[in-house]
């Protein structure tokens, strides 16, 4: 009997890779290079533009809209990330268990995750409107005399959008924490119980340290997605970015500058490059911080 072992042709792997490489190179890597190139030109949607060096970045530096957008997006990160790291962990610890009611609750908590930011935004627009349920209850309870301007005040609008983001994200990070908690050795809980630790001390001394690596990862992911926020703010402000654009985020600014017939694609490219750099710095900063903490 002869062994008929086949030898693969050298190009076989490339056939398997061709579709994926084509899509990724054409629609991700090439646009990325093109964004860098655009950022140094004065291109608009209708004309290719010429090289203007760093002029776009100088202009950005003096652009009030850019400063507002940057402030809002960074504030979003600062406010949302700590909540996203802590609240789902508490939720996961409470809802961890095998009973049917807990399993039902886990599913219910996860539900908002699969909804688009537009649907969630519309639901909360109805709730937070000056005549919506929240204001209705506040006024009925006598907590406020006139409606709270959740959707038009400069800062409140941003906080409302953050609330929507947290509402959608809680269940998502909860599930990730639940997976991490499944990896904690049950013997640690038993030992803590023997030492007389109640549920709160068990949470602080066993659960929280046990999922530290996951917390770090969630901090990383939630800060990147918080900085990129778009849909929630867009829908809550009806696409305007708030009165006079004061609640605009960086992604909204890119969308507004880079689309439409008046689009300044070169300038939008420069904003995109800054966004890319900030996201890179956010990641690097967190990694540095975690390494330092881990090595101590």
């Amino acid at each position, binding site marked *: 009997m002869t062994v008929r072992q*086949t030898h693969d042709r050298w190009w076989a*792997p*490339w056939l398997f*890779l061709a579709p994926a490489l084509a*899509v990724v190179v054409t629609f*991700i890597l*090439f*646009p990325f290079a093109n964004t860098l190139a655009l950022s140094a030109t004065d291109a608009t949607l209708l004309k290719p533009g010429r090289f203007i060096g760093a002029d776009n970045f100088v202009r950005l530096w003096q652009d009030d809209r850019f400063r507002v957008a940057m402030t809002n997006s960074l504030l979003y990160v600062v406010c949302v990330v700590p909540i996203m790291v802590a609240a789902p962990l508490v939720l996961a610890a409470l809802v961890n268990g095998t009973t049917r009611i807990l399993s039902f609750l886990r599913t219910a908590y996860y539900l908002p995750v699969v909804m688009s930011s537009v649907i969630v935004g*519309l639901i909360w627009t109805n709730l937070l409107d000056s005549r919506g349920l929240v204001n209705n209850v506040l006024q009925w309870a006598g907590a406020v005399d006139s409606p709270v301007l959740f959707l038009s005040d400069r800062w409140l609008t941003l906080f409302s959008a953050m609330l929507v983001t947290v509402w959608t994200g809680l269940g998502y990070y909860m599930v990730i924490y639940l997976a991490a908690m499944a990896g904690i050795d049950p013997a640690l809980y038993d030992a803590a119980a023997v030492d007389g630790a109640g549920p709160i001390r068990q949470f602080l001394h066993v659960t929280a340290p046990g999922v530290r690596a996951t917390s770090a990862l969630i901090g990383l992911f939630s800060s990147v997605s918080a900085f990129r926020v778009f849909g929630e703010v867009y829908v809550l402000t009806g696409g305007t970015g708030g009165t006079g654009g004061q609640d605009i985020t960086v992604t909204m600014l890119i969308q507004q500058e880079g689309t439409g017939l008046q689009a300044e694609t070169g300038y939008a490219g420069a904003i995109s490059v800054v966004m890319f750099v900030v996201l890179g710095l956010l990641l690097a900063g967190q990694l540095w911080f975690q390494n330092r903490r881990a090595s101590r």
Partner: protein
Amino acid sequence: MRRVVRYLILLAFFVLLAGPLVWQLSLSLKGAGDDLYAQPPQLVPADPTLGNYGGVLDRVPIPRYVLNSGIVALLVVAGNVVGASLAGYALARLRFRFRRLVTGLFVVALLVPIESIIIAQFLLVRSSGLADTLLGVALPTAIGALNVLLMRNGFQSIPDELEEAARIDGAGVWQRFWHICAPQVRGVMTVVAIFSFVGAWNDFLWPLIVLSGEENYTLTLGLNRLRGTFYSDPRLIAAGTIIALIPILVVFGFLQRYFFRGLQAGGIKG
């Protein structure tokens, strides 16, 4: 006592997360005889009606938007399941020059935030004549780098002996992929399919940039119009969102366990 506190907190979270949905449902069923702004607020409609659903369907072609979103989602799911499986197999199980380099390319692509290249993507789609088409919406996400890497991890976990035996029996690379390896990673494929579907179905920014004609609107764009059109009548907005929620809730209901499994497999999407 501790149990009581625990369940009270869980109940509070439940009200916070499910409450807005229940209120939206109640709002959508309220009729002309209901005072929407009654104090205290009334959860159960006094004058229940399905008229809001008819009203919103009459004025906004939601079925059309659902169809458009469905077409985009179908293209994206098919592209990702097929394209990422093929590429993942090559990266995990075939030996060739530049394999590390190609893997690195996918990792780099994974790290590029879409928002920061979206204008350049639009220029590309526009110059290839795909602006304002559903194909233009689907193409850039038709094979995601993350999915390629997920499939690669899936294929890597298959024991070598399995494929080696087939190779000795004379099975070519395509046969080994199709008959031996692909059936082993069905679970990962399902996860890729589900997350591609949810991503495509819920995407807002990219369709907003690509599509201009209302007849091509996907569901998220169509829903966004609700806010402008019915600003004064929250009942119609509520009915519209409830209609839009039904497809995704059905998908979630049937495939729940895969959602959880996918996240636990480390398939985090930012």
